[in-house]
């Protein structure tokens, strides 16, 4: 397949066909370790180094630059087997603002590994939204390892969402760690459903190191079949008025096993962290309400899970 065909196929899978017609939408398409298509905007710099066995992508949104529409990053692989290894550095400089939508597509995966080692720097008073949406195949033969270190400078705002929108989870091993300075705000959300023998590991950590830093970690997992899911959420607060909250909901069906390990550590008398977790079957009142409207148990459960993961 040539680059055009690959781009076409990836954009169809990720439902991004319409972005090419819009000059104000930037995009970068990467198939395995090669850039196959890109379109940039003033103030958005992407520097790529392609290697045989990995690719390095350095992206900068320059100081004071505001990019209105989401920048689409499409990372994927169409073959059934292989490894995609990416080293990704994103820097949103002082006062800049941008939102990146990463589409990760492995639609035919039988044995695919997607390894992502990343860093994200959000400069002083900058804003960054990072949405990662995965499309996997139906066989569960995909292993994804998104590992990222995040640095928020004073007054920075960061919002991230990790979502599996189609296909089997396979193995998902998320590891995000964030360091948050004074007055910064961090929100990290993940929503994943697993079935059959999927394995989901979510490790999210945020260190609220500066005064008035705020952090919110939220995980939503629906586990059916023989899925195993483990969620480690850690929040530390070491400055005055740092505020944080961990919120984990995991719904199970069949033989799935889920666990949640919240760790909260506070070492400043004026900091405050809370956590809540709900694990188990679907809430019976929610379920029975929908059943009292005529839905069978299966459909009612699916609707509740769909809401939770939306």
């Amino acid at each position: 397949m040539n680059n055009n065909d690959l781009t076409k196929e990836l954009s169809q899978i990720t439902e991004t066909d319409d972005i090419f017609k819009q000059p104000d939408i930037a995009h970068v398409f990467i198939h395995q370790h090669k850039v196959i298509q890109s379109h940039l905007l003033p103030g958005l710099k992407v520097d790529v180094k392609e290697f045989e066995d990995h690719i390095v992508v350095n992206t900068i949104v320059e100081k004071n630059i505001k990019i209105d529409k989401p920048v689409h990053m499409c990372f994927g692989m169409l073959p059934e087997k292989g490894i995609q290894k990416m080293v990704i550095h994103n820097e949103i400089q002082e006062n800049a603002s941008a939102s990146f939508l990463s589409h990760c597509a492995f639609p035919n995966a039988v044995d695919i590994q997607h390894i992502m080692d990343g860093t994200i720097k959000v400069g002083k008073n900058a804003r960054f939204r990072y949405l990662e949406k995965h499309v996997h195949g139906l066989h569960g033969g995909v292993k994804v390892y998104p590992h990222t270190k995040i640095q928020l400078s004073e007054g920075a705002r960061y919002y991230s969402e990790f979502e599996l929108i189609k296909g089997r989870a396979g193995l998902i091993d998320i590891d995000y760690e964030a360091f948050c300075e004074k007055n910064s705000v961090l929100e990290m959300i993940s929503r994943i459903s697993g079935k059959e023998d999927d394995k989901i590991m979510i490790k999210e950590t945020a260190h609220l190191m500066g005064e008035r830093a705020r952090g919110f970690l939220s995980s939503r997992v629906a586990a059916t079949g023989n899925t195993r899911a483990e969620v480690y959420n850690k929040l530390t607060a070491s400055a005055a008025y740092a505020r944080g909250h961990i919120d984990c909901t995991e719904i199970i069906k069949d033989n799935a096993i889920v666990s949640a390990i919240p760790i909260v550590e506070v070492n400043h008398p004026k900091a405050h962290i809370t956590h809540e977790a709900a694990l188990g079957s679907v809430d019976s009142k929610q379920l029975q309400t929908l059943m009292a409207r005529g839905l069978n148990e299966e459909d009612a459960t699916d609707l509740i899970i769909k809401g939770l993961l939306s």
Partner: protein
Amino acid sequence: MKKNILEIKDLSISLNGKKILNNISMEIWEGYVHAIVGPNGAGKSTLASTIMGLEGYRHYTGSIFFKEKDISKLSIDERARLGITFGWQEPARYEGLLVKDFLKAAAGNKNDDFIFEQLERVGLEPEEYAERAVDKTLSGGERKKVELASILVMDPDLVLLDEPDSGIDVATLDKIFEVIKEQKKKKRTIVLITHSLAVLEQADHAFLFCNGEILEKAVAKKIIPYFKDRCIPCKHKNIPDKEGVRLE
């Protein structure tokens, strides 16, 4: 000629070893508005939960017939598909589930226009509410209205409404009374569980419950003195004995 849509005979139920309903017999006439009143803990919600077949309320003695069919073995959704539904005293909240999707779940094959009309009937603007989630960001009253809208979307033959007025403002209450009248015109049967005189006055017929028993069944007007006198003097003082079992 009055026709029974629901017929309950000698219904008793115990929860955690406590007898909560004791030999209840009642007939609910098709196309009428009925009220169930009585003090806190009398067993009103328990009765509605038992009729709906909710979890924990399925081990009863006696019988419940709906449209002349014994429904004791039926699951909640089977009862619903026969034409019964229940509006909770405190409705559930759902993270991420949109109002429109919650309503659609009750719709069967009714169209979107019909769904949005029901929102308007309970005083919620579809443009403002359809895309919101049925979660904790809705106020208590808004959540009750969404619950009622979903019942109107389902349009069942029999609805059991547990304290439909609780948390509802006066203007909306008038709308709800209007809805009750309209539903009655359509020959729907409504059972209102309530502590409110205004709600009782919407009913044709009422049951006065006390301590798991029916003290009186009569036209609604005859039950009104219960509100005036706070409670009708009766042998049940609602005092449990040492084991928490009601005094016979």
